[in-house]
């Protein structure tokens, strides 16, 4: 047992350690739990849930790119009802924070999902995925519209007393303005970043390699961008940040904390090294010992410019 304190808090939510599993990269925890003892990590963020089940996009959904990958899953998920019925019972078994990620096509749907889920004690917090098309208002992403982000945050907070994190889109000029909008609307934290819009073509068929034409870019390739977004938020807005984007090693994770993240999420890396979230715990302890850091939370925003 080490003397190092790895616990961190994201606003009102306290975690055993800052290691979270990112939405959409571990489903509802069932499969990854064969490689990771979920009781050893900070928590797990569910696949984005919508009010009704979603079938998702037709294949091809994924393709590898230099140090990254594109995905266009299309928010395939079991829906809120099925989640409560068949997924929660499994998640209940673990002593780890369950963060419910919600995706919707209208403000009302975000609110309705939250309302249906907030009663479930197993759920510790909500993460709102605003990188979704606003169907009612022309299909542009909520994530690119400050007022929409504020409205969603405010109304979701109205129906739940649990911590609400807004997961920001990186496909904007000044992400800190969106973080500020979320903060002023009552968000407890922001998650940065979701995937970057990207595409790839097959030069023989001249067709996109992803059926949906464009997809979300993730993996090590986007790490410098994600770090810059976290740093921009940290330097401009006083709100807890959950860092995510291209973390493939404990060193990457430490970079995010230095840049200002209170906790971080592992996404694409779960596909490649499914047990890294657990093995990383000890690496973080060794780093703290080496750097004489008694409490890991002191690392957050400790950059020296």
């Amino acid at each position, binding site marked *: 047992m080490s003397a190092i304190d790895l616990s961190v808090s994201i606003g009102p939510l306290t975690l055993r350690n800052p290691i979270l599993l990112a939405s959409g990269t571990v489903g509802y925890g069932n499969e990854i739990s064969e490689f990771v003892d979920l009781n050893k990590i900070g928590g797990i963020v569910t696949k984005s849930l919508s009010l009704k089940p979603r079938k998702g996009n037709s294949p091809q*959904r994924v393709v590898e790119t230099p*140090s990254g990958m594109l995905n266009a899953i299309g928010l395939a998920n079991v829906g809120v009802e099925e989640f409560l019925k068949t997924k929660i019972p499994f998640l209940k078994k673990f002593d780890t924070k369950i963060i419910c990620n919600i995706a919707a096509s209208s403000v009302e749907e975000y609110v309705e999902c939250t309302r249906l889920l907030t009663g479930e004690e197993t759920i510790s917090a909500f993460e709102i995925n605003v990188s979704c098309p606003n169907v009612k208002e022309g299909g542009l992403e909520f994530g690119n519209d400050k007022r929409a982000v504020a409205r969603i945050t405010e109304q979701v907070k109205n129906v739940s007393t649990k911590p609400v994190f807004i997961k920001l889109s990186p496909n904007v000029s000044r992400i800190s303005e969106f973080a500020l909008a979320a903060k002023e609307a009552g968000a407890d934290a922001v998650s940065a970043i979701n995937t970057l819009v990207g595409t790839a073509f097959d030069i023989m068929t001249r067709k996109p390699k992803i059926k949906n034409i464009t997809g979300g870019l993730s993996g090590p390739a986007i790490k410098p961008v994600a770090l810059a977004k976290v740093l921009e938020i940290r330097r401009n807005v006083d709100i807890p940040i959950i860092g995510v984007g291209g973390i493939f090693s404990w060193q990457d994770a430490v970079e995010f904390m230095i840049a200002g993240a209170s906790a971080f999420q592992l996404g694409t890396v779960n596909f490649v090294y499914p047990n890294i979230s657990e093995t990383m715990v000890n690496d973080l302890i060794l780093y703290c010992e080496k750097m004489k850091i008694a409490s890991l939370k002191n690392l957050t925003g400790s950059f020296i410019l």
Partner: protein
Amino acid sequence: MFLENATVNSVTQIGTNVFLLNLQSDKIAKHAKPGQFVNIKVSNSNFPLLRRPFSICNVEGDSFTIMFISVGGGTSALQNKQRGESVDVMGPLGNGFSLAGNFDKAVIVAGGIGAAPFPFLIRELDKTGKEIICFSGGRSKNDCITYEMKNVLAATDDGSFGFEGNVVQLLGSEINKLKNDRIKIFGCGPTPMLKSLQQFCISNSFEAEISTESSMACGFGICQGCPIESTTNKEKYLLVCKDGPVFNVNDVELP
């Protein structure tokens, strides 16, 4: 489902661009079933980033073999592995072929590298005392793989080896001789070939299982990257990596 650092026993070239990689790995070898696959992290660097999926070609004691063609960065890295090197392997993954069913004769239908899973299947079928006949096809002689098959009939598009035409046409021309046996067809190969095989099996109402392919990110059900249309439930895709890669020919709609 295990994560193992398997040691390379050997890399053997068995065709123009076809290789066998034998890996020391007790857990995976012990639990593998024919038709299942492994997902391999080919390098320690970001290139390639994602694991690469390969059918389990055969199992020998506490080692197993994969058969692959070198088509890009990952497979060419595999082809250059040295004996004694350690390789990060996940497996066994997915659902394999079912040896059950009331048939006396197993009909193996392989297109190109689709031959990969069959040495293992054939060995297991042998144990059950079933008769086996194999059909293997390819563009030309070099692409037609018959490794560890038995009673093989070959087909090549250019006629350079065996029947001139694709392997399903060959199967069709031979099918009368099989009409009076109780047969089960096991198919693996490129999607277009599987489609015509599926069509053939359904129209003749043959019992059949096919091993499908899809691009994959995780290989064990967490990314939703490998959907395949189900014939029974239109509300939800099946996952090639988890519900497959082997499906009953009636259960999936090929893309």
